[in-house]
């Protein structure tokens, strides 16, 4: 019933999140599982958020959109993005189990972010190969 991820992999995930995402100006990166557990988190130190609540809500949000997709016969709705005045949130799926949640400000362009997210996700997936 339990599952774990070994230390080496977590360290690798951490450095991928830091190098690919925090380095380009993202405020906060969270890797969560679809049950709402926090797997890894990385931040720029600029803000502090209630991470456990964010993870629970993000997992719920993702699951809701996913369930809606199934009802209308879509595999998935690929882009999940909430834009705010100062902070925006970007969701993406790493695989069946894991999601990547990114909080970022106005300075980061969505196009560039998406590119970097795709790179980071490829690298994380490769850790399980």
């Amino acid at each position, binding site marked *: 019933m339990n*599952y*774990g991820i070994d230390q080496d992999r*977590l360290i690798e995930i951490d450095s991928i999140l830091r190098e690919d995402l925090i380095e380009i100006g993202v405020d906060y990166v969270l890797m969560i*599982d*679809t*049950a709402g557990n926090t797997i890894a988190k990385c931040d720029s130190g600029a803000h502090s958020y209630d991470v456990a*609540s964010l993870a629970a*809500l993000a997992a719920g949000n993702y699951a809701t959109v996913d369930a809606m997709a199934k009802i209308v016969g879509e595999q998935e709705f690929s882009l999940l993005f909430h834009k705010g005045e100062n902070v925006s949130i970007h969701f993406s799926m790493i695989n069946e189990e894991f999601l990547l949640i990114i909080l970022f400000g106005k300075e980061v362009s969505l196009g560039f972010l998406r590119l970097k997210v795709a790179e980071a996700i490829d690298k994380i997936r490769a850790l399980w190969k």
Partner: protein
Amino acid sequence: MAFINMRTNEVQVKIVYYGPGRGGKTSNLEYINKKFRERIKTEMVSIKTHGDRTLFFDFLPFDIGKIKGYDIKIQMYTVPGQVKYNATRKLVLKGVDGLVFVADAMAERRRHNLLSLKQLQENLAEYKKSIFKIPLILQYNKMDLKDRGVPLLSLETLEQDLNSKLKAPSYPASAITGENVVVTLKKIISVTMAAIQRELK
């Protein structure tokens, strides 16, 4: 499915309060939140309707300190009890480690308890989990109403209806006065941790 972070030695455990609409699931978490306010660092999250019915879930994290060197983080959720919300109920059950079934002891709610428990069994089965194997506590809530002359189901009837096959630990309780709310919480944590520890070596 408890997540064990081998880097920070942290274990995240998901406990879900399940049961019929208006049975007192949210009230249980509200009582715990008030009682342990100084130990809970964040606000309780409630996604609810204007009428204060749970729409998606309530969420309350609760750190219980270390067991065998692991930092244990309990994450408590409630499901929405209203019949029409079964799709979201299922989502909340994803990855559940332990369950508290909050039954409503009011006589008129007898059928709702039965239906809700039956649906819980079905919902768990969709995740390939058995209601007979998962850590589970039954709570017979609203016992305080007896003093106010509201017709309640007897404990025998509740046991017969809900617990004759499950044989889970069960407690009469009141989420309003707090009777057995903390007892229920402690019991589900200990039963769930025992199940997790059997797998933690």
